């Protein structure tokens, strides 16, 4: 059983999705989905433990050997991502039953859980697989179900947002498909491990450069890197609250994983960063993303929009860490990936609670909520502090690592810019605090009560995780460091 964990990780949610149709009763389906997601979490914890003690796990599907059959390859990086995705999915699901009762008509509840499980299976599949074409297939499984999930939003703008995301997402995925095709044409293999060995032999050809360009642009569309982020704000703002909390914490993270996997493992560091001016390109776009998106976030009147733009800015930090292209920089990126998943799921879930109580996330409706929903608002404040990067929260840990990595590289001005970017976060978080705590409550809102426990428990689990991993950084830092060292080791064959 233990030997089959890599495939069970993907197949359990995938097979569970159609089973929901047979159950077809909202509450039971919810419990079933929660159980399946919990099972995925258990599997990913076991996998991480196994990888940390005994190294990379290689699993041949159907017993076919690697270059012919599809191989699942789990190293520290994969296991780390699997854990993040399944953990966030499980915690977010706790609130799902309560939240979607308000936001989605009862006849669509079963469909919601099916799509949710498919998205989860797709994302776990992208991370678990060691085959480049398999990545495309799982990418489309998760994306297509994500488009449908977003379209379930109450507002009609959800449909429009979903359509725009579909167009952009399909272009991105097709670009990745073209890139994979060109890679196959040059090397005759789709196995990532094999590709990494054969690509250096042909790396000076124009075809490989073209393949690289297509893959990188495709992935950057998926991860909403500035200036390819246009689909993200509306998609996050109008999707049902649960969907936003889940996707904001996981979907872009999976794309970051793909970026790391393709540049570091498949094309190799020397190709990605010396033959192609990726470093300076990503540094500039990452910093531009931080400043433009944070500034736009300040002017938003819908809090879901505000945090969606802040997500784009946070992706900017990850890209900057990536562009440093050192073990320290990559560690910072991976840490921020983990930490940002915790912050954003907490924040968007808390916004889901606000949505449940007052049916809107407009900033002007937040007046006086600090007194009426103290626990929910406190969660938003802690999440906001974490976004800014205040000590004792996770945000501080990853920004610290990022600044140290940048300084180690001698990029002083970049370190200053990163800190300035955090000041912008202070501004947009302050706007919420001001409305919630320092303005009088609106007339006729005296009856608003604290959010139900179904929300408060998962929100506070995430908030406490935000603080816990901000103080006790052993788990996250150890795994992130091991993963990035492993990536660099695989490249040069010597320990750094």
């Amino acid at each position: 059983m233990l030997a089959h964990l890599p495939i069970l990780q993907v197949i359990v949610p995938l097979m569970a999705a159609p089973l929901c149709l047979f159950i077809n009763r909202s509450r039971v389906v919810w419990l079933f989905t929660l159980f399946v997601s919990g099972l995925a979490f258990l599997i990913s914890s076991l996998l991480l433990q196994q990888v940390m003690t005994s190294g990379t796990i290689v699993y041949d599907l159907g017993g076919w050997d690697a270059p012919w059959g599809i191989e699942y390859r789990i190293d520290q990086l994969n296991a780390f991502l699997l854990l993040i995705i399944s953990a966030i999915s499980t915690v977010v699901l706790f609130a799902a039953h309560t939240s979607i009762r308000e936001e989605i008509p009862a006849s669509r509840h079963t469909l919601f859980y099916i799509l949710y499980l498919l998205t989860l299976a797709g994302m776990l599949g992208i991370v678990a697989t060691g085959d480049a074409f398999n990545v495309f297939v799982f990418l489309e499984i998760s994306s297509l179900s994500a488009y449908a999930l977003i379209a379930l939003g109450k507002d009609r703008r959800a449909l429009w947002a979903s359509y725009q995301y579909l167009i952009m997402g399909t272009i991105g995925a097709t670009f990745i498909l073209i890139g994979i095709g060109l890679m196959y044409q040059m090397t005759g293999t789709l196995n990532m491990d094999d590709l990494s060995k054969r690509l250096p032999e042909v790396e000076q050809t124009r075809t490989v450069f073209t393949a690289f360009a297509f893959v990188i642009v495709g992935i950057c569309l998926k991860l909403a890197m500035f200036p390819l982020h246009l689909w993200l704000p509306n998609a996050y703002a109008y999707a049902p609250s649960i969907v936003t909390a889940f996707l904001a914490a996981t979907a872009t993270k999976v794309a970051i994983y793909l970026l790391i996997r393709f540049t570091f493992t498949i094309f190799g560091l020397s190709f990605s960063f010396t033959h192609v001016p990726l470093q300076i390109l990503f540094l500039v776009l990452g910093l531009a993303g931080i400043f433009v998106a944070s500034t736009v976030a300040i002017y938003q009147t819908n809090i879901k929009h505000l945090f969606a733009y802040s997500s784009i800015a946070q992706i900017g930090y990850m890209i900057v860490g990536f562009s440093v292209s050192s073990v320290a920089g990559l560690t910072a990126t991976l840490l921020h990936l983990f930490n940002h998943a915790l912050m954003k799921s907490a924040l968007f879930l808390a916004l889901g609670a606000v949505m449940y109580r007052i049916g809107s996330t407009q900033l002007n409706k937040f007046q006086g909520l600090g007194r009426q929903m103290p626990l929910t608002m406190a969660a938003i404040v802690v999440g906001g502090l974490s976004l800014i990067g205040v000590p004792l929260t996770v945000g501080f840990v990853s920004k610290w690592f990022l600044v140290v990595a940048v300084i180690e590289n001698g990029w002083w001005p970049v370190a200053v810019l990163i800190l300035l970017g955090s000041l912008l976060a202070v501004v947009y978080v302050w706007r919420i605090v001001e409305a919630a705590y320092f303005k009088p409550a609106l007339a006729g809102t005296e009856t608003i009560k604290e959010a139900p426990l179904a929300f408060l428990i998962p929100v506070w689990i995430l908030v406490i995780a935000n603080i816990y991993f901000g103080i006790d950084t052993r788990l996250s830092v150890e795994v992130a460091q091991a993963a990035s060292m492993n990536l660099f080791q695989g490249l040069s064959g010597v320990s750094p």
Partner: protein
Amino acid sequence: MILGLYNYWVVVVLMMVGFYIVIAHGNLIKKIVGLTIFQTSVFIFYISMAKVEGGTAPILTDGVEQYSNPLPHVLILTAIVVGIATTALALALVVRIKEAYGSIEEEEIQEKDNLDC
């Protein structure tokens, strides 16, 4: 050079035509048409890539030494299925958009959204 890469020229032209339609047209159905053309060009690309000069269909028979590569064909079958799913979902969304907005023109939808804000 030009004739030898005939298939690839077709791929490039189709790809650009499809991509242009997606970007330039405001009608949601036309955008989907463009997207489908764009995806189809990639299918042709994969299929052209698999052709081995002088090779036949990959069926084991006597007297044939060289076969075309069947793997890209199999891959592209998967991609075609994905493409159909995408088109179906996009069309379903357009139906819902038409019901909700009463229009499938990008500009009119944007206008109505701006009024809402």
